[in-house]
């Protein structure tokens, strides 16, 4: 009996000691988790040496720094986007910096399926996105979430990408064939169980600030939302329903540096601040060497087509641009504002990538709309009025414009003639494509405002030149001006 009592007392004491000791250990456990995050870098690869230097410095303070990207690393600079292995400059620099993960932005899909598969394989960091799945034949493995063990803290990062009203991220529909996308909130609901499996729950989001706020209001389970897509400049971060949301504008103007204090497996304090990149005085030397290497891109000198005869007017080059976007978009008619054609002479011979980028440097996308002949006529007049009284160039139709005077002060009358030489039917609906600037400034009433194709007009011109191989526009006209 005495022995039994002794064992019982010892067991109880041991249990009490263990319990007390464990509580002491847990109570004393407090650590700061540091995160650097970017979003919407849009191929601003020339700023990555400065970011690399900042990350180097922060890693001296905390070697366990997490580096996160909230999507849209590409699309915005021809050196990166037109690299033979598209977007490789950004990826190699992100590898050098040591990003821990990214989510997909809508523009990651601009690499097309094969390019995206290559991008993912070349990246030393995972692409985390829960509301996407890819058909097996694409060879694209998507990861909905990832755990990181940082200084004894279990961090879970869940990723989501923006879905537009058309049911896909904002990219050309062809780029997402083979992918399936699920609604963001429904997806988050499905993965909420992860909250119980981690100390810190982070949403890496490319859905835009306004939707991040909605998510925070509905899902206070997140400690932090690292956001992107809407190019919103927050002062560090902003807390909604207890959830810290961070985001910076685009093109690496700033980084966000977030500190989460974790005690007893819970986040007890959250702080975020911006770090300026543009004026940061130091650059990582290795990163700068990579930038220098990639900047010398032979792709820009690549010959796309041969000009059989020289171009000697804005109109000839405007006709080429309009033919290109009409053909590549499969439209009946196209138009470009005259101010969008940036040079007027081009010799016979090579027409290169660089020539295209000089001719059409604004990054305009092609916008397609279904409008009547009457609406088209009104659009062309509105474009003239908004573009310093210069009539737009067209393809698929020829325009006979009569002005009130020799200074083109106003249009007296306009005839829009189809390929048969007759005026187009004012009631018939045509598929019309224009560059995004011309479409915007043509402020005339119409039912269909159009849809962005998410393809740059310069990309369409390159595709067209590759397709036709030879061009001859000497004396070509799409416009007859009568004074």
């Amino acid at each position, binding site marked *: 009996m005495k022995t039994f009592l002794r064992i019982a007392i010892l067991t109880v004491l041991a249990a009490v000691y263990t319990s007390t000791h464990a509580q002491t250990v847990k109570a004393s456990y407090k650590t700061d988790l540091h995160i650097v995050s970017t979003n919407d870098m849009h191929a601003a690869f020339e700023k990555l040496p400065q970011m690399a230097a900042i990350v180097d410095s922060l890693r001296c303070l905390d070697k366990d720094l997490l580096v996160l990207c909230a999507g849209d690393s590409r699309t915005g600079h021809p050196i990166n986007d037109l690299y033979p292995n598209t977007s490789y400059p950004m990826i190699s620099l992100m590898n050098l910096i040591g990003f821990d993960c990214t989510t997909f932005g809508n523009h990651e899909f601009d690499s097309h399926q094969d390019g995206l598969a290559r991008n993912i394989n070349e990246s030393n960091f995972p692409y985390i996105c829960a509301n996407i799945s890819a058909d097996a034949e694409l060879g694209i493995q998507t990861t909905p979430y990832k755990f990181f063990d940082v200084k004894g803290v279990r961090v879970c990062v869940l990723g989501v990408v923006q879905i537009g009203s058309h049911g896909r991220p904002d990219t050309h529909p062809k780029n997402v064939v083979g992918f399936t996308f699920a609604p963001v909130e429904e997806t988050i609901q499905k993965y909420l169980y992860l909250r119980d499996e981690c100390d810190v729950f982070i949403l890496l989001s490319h859905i835009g600030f306004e939707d991040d706020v909605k998510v925070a209001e509905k899902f206070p389970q997140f400690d932090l939302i690292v956001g992107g897509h809407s190019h919103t400049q927050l002062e560090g971060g902003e807390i909604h329903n207890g959830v810290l949301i961070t985001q910076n504008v685009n093109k690496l103007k700033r980084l966000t540096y977030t500190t989460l204090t974790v005690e007893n497996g819970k986040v007890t304090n959250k702080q975020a601040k911006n770090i300026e990149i543009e004026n940061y005085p130091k650059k990582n030397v290795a990163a700068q060497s990579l930038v220098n290497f990639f900047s010398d891109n032979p792709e820009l000198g690549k010959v796309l087509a041969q000009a059989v005869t020289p171009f000697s007017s804005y109109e000839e080059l405007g006709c080429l641009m309009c033919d290109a976007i009409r053909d590549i978009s499969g439209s009946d008619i196209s138009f470009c504002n005259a101010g969008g054609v940036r040079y007027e002479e081009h010799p016979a011979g090579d027409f290169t990538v660089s020539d295209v980028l000089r001719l059409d440097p604004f990054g305009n996308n092609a916008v397609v709309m279904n409008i009547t002949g009457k609406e088209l006529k009104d659009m062309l007049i509105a474009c003239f009025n908004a573009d310093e009284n210069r009539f737009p160039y067209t393809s698929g139709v020829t325009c006979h414009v009569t002005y009130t005077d020799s200074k083109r002060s106003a249009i007296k009358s306009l005839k829009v003639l189809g390929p048969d030489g007759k005026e187009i039917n004012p009631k018939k609906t045509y598929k019309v494509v224009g560059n995004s600037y011309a479409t915007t*400034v043509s402020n005339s009433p119409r039912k269909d405002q159009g849809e962005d194709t998410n393809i740059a007009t310069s990309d369409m011109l390159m595709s067209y030149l590759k397709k036709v191989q030879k061009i001859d526009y000497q004396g070509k006209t799409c416009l007859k001006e009568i004074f």
Partner: protein
Amino acid sequence: MTVTVNNQEIRIFNGATAKHAILRYMLKNKLEVKKVDNLVIKDKYGHQIDGDAPLSDGQTITFKTV
């Protein structure tokens, strides 16, 4: 899509950015067209956004000349 710029509804193509909506607003109101670099653009929360910020249907923005 329809977005609101400085309290005025603007119809514009799907996929338009903040600078497109503002340009349309300026033309509609016969204002002098300013370069987007000279504007401060804000979302409905009052946060600054970039001219290239993508807009969605129903979104509200405001802008001021610097």
